[in-house]
């Protein structure tokens, strides 16, 4: 190894840590305990940055341990020097915070591990070098061992970050948590137990991988199907039991995640299956929410003289309104779709972007404000709960969202391998030939658009019912972007991907509220990382994976082994 190959990653690691510190992330994160009394999240963040740079550099080198140590040392030294520099500037009486607002005494204390500046700087270098050494050793380890170590560390971090949910959940299950958690972080004993358990489980699971594969291969088709069905049932039972285990707060988060799962499944039909990039998906979400509000809110313009009959006919009941809302959305979807679907690719994306904005502007307009409430929005949606089922209770509406998500997932699943799904796949690949083969491209595009609109409007209905009041600013471009990011992260065209994407992009930030101000930064960093390292998403659809890794060794893949995912 030569020193130069360690220089660049070393500086990158150092600069990343200094950057994260200077924007205040390290200090803010440090408030959160990972291992109470020992390590805070801010320090973990730094160590992870060191570890990633050392690891990637060590992997490319033939002497991984040396490279790891060198990278770790350089990163740590860089951070230590910058820290001492700031310390010196402050001591010299300069107003550092006039420029770097986040360079607080608290931050410097974190960067010096609470010691005096010189010892602190030394500690920083020692810590980063140690992390670099560990990363270098990890690279050299045999695959199973490495995987088990990384898994154990990852699980421990997740257990610690998940403290707010897990403590409540375990409490609801009458499991004592005192030994595991303390002051928002893991106890030292808890950490050791979790590390050991995770390591052991992973090791055991991987050592049995061959046996398991053999058993699976020998299993008759019928047994395999029974197993598949049984695990699906188990998953559904778990999903049904979930809100009562995790309590109302997490249930509320689960409801929001479910909403995005629903929206993701809808957009997935349009973007993933039919290949139409729709950047204005929020339009259908808004249509669903506003239609539901108009039908069911007592503040609605429909509740006037002639509207009275309407109410008496039972339309103000959410259940009765639901199918009409979906029909309206499908009709609007088709009406918007008809003129624009002759456009392709980028042009379609830009026009849909415009439609999303048009809907929002229309809602805000004076012209429609007597009907849609303008900036004041519409409140009390629906006025009376449809029955004893209380929509305002997060544990109740969760079920509504879950039920419709399951239906949407089932329909999506069945669509992929159907005639319609094949026609979409053909269209995505070569529109001209698809047309020459007799596939009515316009009709299939419209179908995708209308189905996406219908599912999106359901999301809107539940959003309105969940929040109880709707305002135009809930329907901005951000929603379209979020939903698109959900399906990109999970894997375009993949149903499990939508669920994972929604959980990661919507669920995690809700649970890590204290990091609110850095949310978009983290969001962006994750998306960039996904695009670079895994463009097919976390749980990809097999066909997409082939499309993106064209020419790599997937050439002779046996297509029967793929589920329709």
């Amino acid at each position, binding site marked *: 190894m030569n020193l130069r190959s360690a220089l660049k990653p070393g500086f990158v690691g150092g600069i990343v840590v200094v950057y994260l510190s200077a924007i205040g992330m390290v200090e803010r994160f440090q408030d959160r305990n990972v291992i109470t009394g020992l390590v805070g999240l801010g320090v973990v963040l730094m160590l992870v940055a060191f570890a990633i740079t050392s690891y990637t550099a060590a992997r490319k080198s033939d002497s991984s341990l040396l490279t790891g140590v060198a990278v770790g040392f350089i990163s740590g030294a860089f951070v230590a020097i910058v820290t001492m520099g700031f310390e010196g500037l402050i001591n010299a009486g300069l107003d550092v915070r006039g420029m770097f607002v986040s360079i607080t005494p608290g931050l410097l204390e974190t960067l010096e591990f609470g010691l005096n500046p010189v010892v602190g700087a030394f500690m920083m270098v020692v810590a980063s070098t140690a992390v670099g050494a560990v990363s270098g050793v990890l690279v050299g380890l045999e695959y199973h061992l490495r995987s088990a170590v990384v898994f154990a560390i990852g699980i421990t971090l997740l257990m610690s970050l998940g403290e707010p949910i897990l403590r409540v959940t375990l409490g609801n299950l009458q499991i004592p948590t005192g030994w595991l958690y303390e002051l928002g972080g893991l106890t030292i004993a808890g950490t050791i137990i979790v590390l050991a358990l995770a390591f052991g489980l992973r090791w055991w699971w991987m050592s049995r991988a061959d046996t398991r594969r053999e058993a699976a291969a020998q299993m008759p088709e019928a047994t395999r199907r029974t197993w598949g069905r049984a695990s699906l049932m188990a998953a559904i039972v778990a999903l049904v039991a979930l809100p009562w285990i995790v309590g109302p707060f997490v249930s509320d988060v689960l409801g929001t995640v479910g909403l995005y799962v629903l929206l993701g499944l809808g957009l997935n039909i349009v973007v993933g299956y039919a290949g139409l990039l729709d950047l204005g998906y929020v339009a259908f979400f808004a249509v669903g929410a506003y239609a539901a509000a108009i039908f069911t809110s007592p503040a609605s313009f429909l509740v006037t003289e002639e509207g009275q009959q309407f109410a008496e006919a039972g339309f103000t009941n959410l259940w009765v309104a639901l199918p009409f809302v979906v029909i309206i959305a499908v009709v609007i979807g088709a009406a918007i779709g008809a003129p624009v679907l002759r456009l392709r690719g980028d042009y379609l994306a830009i026009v849909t972007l415009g439609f999303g904005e048009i809907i929002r502007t229309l809602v805000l307009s004076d012209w429609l404000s007597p009907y849609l409430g303008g900036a004041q929005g519409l409140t009390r949606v629906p006025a009376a709960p449809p029955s004893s089922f209380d929509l305002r209770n997060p544990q109740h509406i969760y079920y509504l969202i879950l039920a419709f998500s399951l239906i949407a997932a089932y329909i999506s699943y069945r669509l992929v391998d159907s*005639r319609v799904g*094949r*026609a979409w*796949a*053909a269209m995505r*690949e*070569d529109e*001209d*030939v*698809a*047309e*020459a*083969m*007799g*596939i*009515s491209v316009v*009709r299939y595009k419209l179908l995708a658009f209308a189905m996406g609109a219908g599912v999106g409007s359901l999301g809107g209905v539940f959003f309105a019912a969940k929040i109880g009041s709707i305002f135009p600013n809930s329907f901005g471009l951000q929603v379209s972007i979020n939903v698109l990011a959900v399906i990109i992260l999970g894997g375009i065209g993949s149903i499990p991907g939508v669920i994972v994407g929604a959980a990661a992009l919507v669920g995690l930030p809700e649970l890590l509220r204290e990091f609110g101000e850095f949310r978009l930064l983290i969001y962006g960093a994750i998306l960039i990382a996904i695009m670079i390292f895994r463009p097919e998403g976390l749980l990809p659809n097999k*066909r997409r994976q*082939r*499309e993106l890794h064209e020419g790599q060794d997937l*050439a*002779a*893949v*046996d*297509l*029967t082994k793929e589920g329709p995912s």
Partner: protein
Amino acid sequence: MSDAILSLRHVSASYGPVRALDDISIDVNEGEIVCLLGSNAAGKSTTLRTILGMTRANAGEIVFDGERIEGLTTPEIVSRGLTMVPENRRLFGKMSVKENLEIGANLRDDKAEIQEDIERVFSLFPRLKERIRQRAGTLSGGEQQMLAIGRALTARPKVLLLDEPSMGLAPILVEQVFETIQEINSQGTTIFVVEQNAHMALSIADRGYVLQTGSIVLEDTAANLLEHPKLSDAYLGEME
């Protein structure tokens, strides 16, 4: 001609201001193999696109099976029994062989009959059956041409339109492809084939037309055309 299953009568078509077809008339009788010959840019592919409604005719009429089709959409025309094997094959490369064949049958509903047609394709091209789950894009050139023909056949066409089936294939494969076309014809499918390879096409065809810069310049039986001195003119015309 009254027994023509497909006829173009005084058809013209243009791309913007550029006239691609100028008043052409072609008749294809039931059970025949008819070829349309011509050099690059003579308008051969445009003729096929116009028949299928992918390019609109400005004038003239196209009659298929006794009805005018020039105003119909492509899917409507395909569903009446006209299917094309596109130039350069244009398979759905990321789909399996089986899926490509199923796409051909996309307009039809009867699962049993589709399966029957797929089996028929496999009996024509046993090689495809061996590769049923393989990705179409990984097939060899000859296999891809077979699959492209197979994909068109699962639509159960009355008339099969082929756009330069010999393009980019080794001579031995070209011969095989044309033998297969003959076999498909003998099983009762009418064939209209567009080709640059005049001798190969005429060797299996009943009749032929020669297209030059958008107009039909020759029309005769295949045997006569093969002997015709002007045939080479039609090809060399541009180079003179």
